[in-house]
């Protein structure tokens, strides 16, 4: 292929700068940064995590704040006055749609009774064939008549009379008794006032929610000042998570990227002693990152904050190709420069391919966030390779960049020639691996990804526990292809739960019934009522009310069931939905119902549900641990598969088993050394460390390839290039250690030392005796 002259290099370079600027502007303009943690963590391929992700993403649920005011040691009157004033002021915030307390107030109760008017028979019993005959018995009638009298003489005869018109036996009272437990607050509510606040803006709209949270805090602080700061204020809910994650991501991205850029720039400057080289590198790196952002945005429609944070390591990986090219072409000009880069191009391609393999392996580990990281980094690497080959020579020409790295590890190459030292290195690594690897303590580090979220989750649970007597994060999940099917399954399950309750294995539980019943159950109730309502039972009722001291002639006559069945949409429009909305997950293809649980014995519940189809016990903590274990196992498999895939690429490239093995050896030894060291250190290893090891292997293989191929026939020069590459990569990954997120620390302290070990091992492992 004829080599182009350097006459049009300035034009190409100017064009390149213009294109870079356009790409950066386009990336900034089009990128949608998302910080919803559900996107990153939950794969959506399991019903459990799907339910969690769905709940988090549910528009209605996500717009709710749980607000708890602590007022311990303050009189009830003052606390009430404060919370009333606060709620009134919060209601005036433009984005606040509604605020409601954790219990029904009188207005809610009125609306509830209106919504459920005429449904007292449909919702009467789970076992109508048994319970209606019992009701129509002489004893049942007497009991019901006494209930009626009690209601008329109770605290609200007006309400009782209003129900009588449609429900002469006041069966609605039986229904209200069943749901009554929903109103009983747990014992730990003393000293707290809790309520819900729903916003108009989406809970995941972190910008709008930041404004709302600031306003909430401002309103609270101003009012609290009037009460000498006697109150404290806690908020929980999806919007709080969204804002926290966004802030953490943005802080991390800006901190890591700034630090990483500065560190790499300073290192480059120190090594190359050339501003021009730095400018040249910065330009191609900027283009690489802009292209990676645009491609990720194009494929996923958004880019996640954690992807960007992890993606900053791309700088450290891609700079290797530029540095390698610049070092090899650095002291040449014109056509020789292009020729030099052409010469190492196959080597760069092989190195790039093996690194991409590593990231592809990551993407199929099942961890959704890493798929984006893989696309981001993979596209970045391809761009970097293409730029190294087709743009870098022109840029070097324009900037008149000639490079001779100031760093020179010739001494190491000489030392590595000593056979004894070589064997010593192998023996040390071998012993470390043999002793350390069996001692590795595997931990589940998924929670580590979001330490702040864990804290928020604990606060969320504390606030929720002040609102209802249930154990947050543990519930029973019921699935059905339709809502009717799911409701039927939940109704069939209730005898089992009642049995467990009788055994003391579960304190309480909150099923959809009696708020809602399947059409099948409603129909059975209706049939049982109609069948039982005969002239004899009518007369029996009249006798019972007369005996109780009630005026039978003033009571409305018992009628057959007149109302239509209760539908889910009616419940949706009633105050009951405030309590039920989080129990229903309605999707076109299926409906999932959650039954919340009070104090319970998880093992007993799990065992009892074992053989019931479409029903399972769900523990959020167990589920996340299982998810983490599953990710870790997949990551272990992917680490092995990734290394095998890299080996196959090397085999194809070299057509020699020995050469492929040799190229892979520094990376393999580095990984073994890291594994052994982690084992000996006693620190737990998790999925993130395995990901780090895979990246280490993918990057170190490049050094093996560069060193072994030595296209310039100058081992010292090649090792110089590798040294600079390894240092910049290590520094870039080490910068992840500056993140607030310990997950980034795991990557930092795996990849940074791994890369250094991999590069230092090259002369010991790959150098031929000459």
């Amino acid at each position, binding site marked *: 292929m004829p080599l182009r002259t350097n006459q049009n290099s300035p034009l190409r370079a100017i064009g390149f700068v213009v294109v870079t600027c356009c790409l950066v502007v386009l990336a900034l303009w089009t990128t949608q940064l998302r910080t919803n943690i559900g996107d990153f963590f939950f794969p959506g391929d399991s019903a459990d995590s799907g339910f969690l992700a769905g709940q988090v993403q549910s528009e209605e649920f996500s717009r709710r704040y749980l607000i708890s005011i602590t007022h311990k040691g303050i009189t009830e009157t003052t606390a009430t*006055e404060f919370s009333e004033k606060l709620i009134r002021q919060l209601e005036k915030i433009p984005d606040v749609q509604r605020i409601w307390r954790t219990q029904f107030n009188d207005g809610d109760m009125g609306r509830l009774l209106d919504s459920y008017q005429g449904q007292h028979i449909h919702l009467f019993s789970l076992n109508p064939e048994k319970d209606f005959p019992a009701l129509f018995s002489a004893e049942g009638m007497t009991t019901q008549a006494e209930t009626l009298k009690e209601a008329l003489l109770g605290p609200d005869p007006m309400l009782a009379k209003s129900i009588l018109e449609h429900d002469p036996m006041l069966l609605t009272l039986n229904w209200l008794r069943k749901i009554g437990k929903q109103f009983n607050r747990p014992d730990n509510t003393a000293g707290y006032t809790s309520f819900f606040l729903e916003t108009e803006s989406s809970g995941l709209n972190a910008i709008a929610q930041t404004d709302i949270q600031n306003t909430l805090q401002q309103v609270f602080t101003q009012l609290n000042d009037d009460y000498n700061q006697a109150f404290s204020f806690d908020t929980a809910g999806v919007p709080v998570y969204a804002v926290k994650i966004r802030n953490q991501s943005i802080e991390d991205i800006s901190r890591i990227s700034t630090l990483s850029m500065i560190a790499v720039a300073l290192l480059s400057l120190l090594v190359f002693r050339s501003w021009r080289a730095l400018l040249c590198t910065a330009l191609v790196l900027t283009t690489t990152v802009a292209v990676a952002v645009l491609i990720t945005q194009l494929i996923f429609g958004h880019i996640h904050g954690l992807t960007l944070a992890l993606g900053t390591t791309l700088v450290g990986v891609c700079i290797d190709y530029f540095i390698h090219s610049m070092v090899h072409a650095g002291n040449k000009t014109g056509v020789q420069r292009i020729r030099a880069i052409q010469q190492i191009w196959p080597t760069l391609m092989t190195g790039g391919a093996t690194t991409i393999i590593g990231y592809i392996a990551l993407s199929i580990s099942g961890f959704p966030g890493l798929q984006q990281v893989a696309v981001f980094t993979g596209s970045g690497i391809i761009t970097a390779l293409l730029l190294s080959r087709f743009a870098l020579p022109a840029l070097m020409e324009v900037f008149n960049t000639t490079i001779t790295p100031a760093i020179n590890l010739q001494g190491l190459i000489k030392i590595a020639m000593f056979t004894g030292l070589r064997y010593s290195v192998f023996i040390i690594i071998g012993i470390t691996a043999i002793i350390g690897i069996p001692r590795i303590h595997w931990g589940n580090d998924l929670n580590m990804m979001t330490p702040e979220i864990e804290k928020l989750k604990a606060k969320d649970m504390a606030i929720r526990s002040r609102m209802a007597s249930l154990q947050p994060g543990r519930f029973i999940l019921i699935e059905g292809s339709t809502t009717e099917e799911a409701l039927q399954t939940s109704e069939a399950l209730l005898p089992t739960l009642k049995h467990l309750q009788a055994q003391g294995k579960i304190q309480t539980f909150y099923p959809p019934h009696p708020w809602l019943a399947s059409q099948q159950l409603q129909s059975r109730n209706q049939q049982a009522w109609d069948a039982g309502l005969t002239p004899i039972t009518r007369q029996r009722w009249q006798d019972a009310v007369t005996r109780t001291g009630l005026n039978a002639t003033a009571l409305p006559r018992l009628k057959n069931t007149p109302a239509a069945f209760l539908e889910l949409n009616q419940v949706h429009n009633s105050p009951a939905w405030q309590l039920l909305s989080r129990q229903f997950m309605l999707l076109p293809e299926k409906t999932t119902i959650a039954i919340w649980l009070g104090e319970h014995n998880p093992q007993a519940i799990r065992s009892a549900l074992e053989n019931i189809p479409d029903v399972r016990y769900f523990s959020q903590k167990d589920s996340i641990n299982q998810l983490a274990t599953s990710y870790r196992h997949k990551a272990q498999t992917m680490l092995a598969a990734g290394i095998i895939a890299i080996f196959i690429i090397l085999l194809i490239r070299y057509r020699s088993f020995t050469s492929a093995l040799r190229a892979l050896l520094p990376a393999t030894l580095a990984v073994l050394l890291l594994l052994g060291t982690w084992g000996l250190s006693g620190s737990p290893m998790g999925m993130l460390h395995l990901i780090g090891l895979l990246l280490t292997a993918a990057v170190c293989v490049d050094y093996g390839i560069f060193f072994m191929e030595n296209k310039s026939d100058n081992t010292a020069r090649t090792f110089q290039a590798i040294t600079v590459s390894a240092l910049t990569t290590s520094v870039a990954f080490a910068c992840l250690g500056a993140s607030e997120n310990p997950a980034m620390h795991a990557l930092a302290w795996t990849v940074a030392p791994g890369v250094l070990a991999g590069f230092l091992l090259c002369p010991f492992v790959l150098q031929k005796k000459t």
Partner: protein
Amino acid sequence: MLFRVNLLFSVWLAILSPAPADATETFDAVLERMQFTENQHFRYQETRHLALLTQPWIATGDMFITADGMVMAQQSPASILTKITKDKLEYFDTENDIQRTIPLKQAFAVPGMAPFLQMLYPGEQHSRLEENYQTSFSLEKNRWKLVMGPRQIDKNKIRAMTLSGSQGNGPDFLKLEYTDGDQTEWQLSLLAQGQDVADRLKRILDSIKETNAFED
């Protein structure tokens, strides 16, 4: 049982603060006298005349007015405790093991009895009483009489409420008339006031606590 406390209870509130006799009794003076100033303990008798009952129903018990709210301890025909504070109403039927708590949307806005509680514990709603109710105040012999009727009458709600008492004193009689013709009457007599009332209330609450039905 359902959740609202009868308007009748509120009447008792009006009985607060008996004051020295005054020949020029006025509506404003009566209203001012109703406002809470110190703890009080009353004995009451409630009589309900309901079309659905063949005989009138009579209940007796004790009522306590404190700074935080009102406590009613019905003694017969059954032991029932009702506690009303600014933000909630709690109902405890210890014999039948029934407990209810109703959060209140506004301060002391117990359905039906809101105007009385707001007379007793004046707040933002107090100034709106005359906007929402028609009032008629009169003097007959040595007694004053106040009749209040909501300007907007809802079905199954209170049609009229009559309070009366001897001149210079708080109310000792209350009658509630419902839109369906039912009526409830309350007769009240002051037993004690001052610090001693708190001790009496504590003793009653303690005795109920022993049944594990009620907690402060």
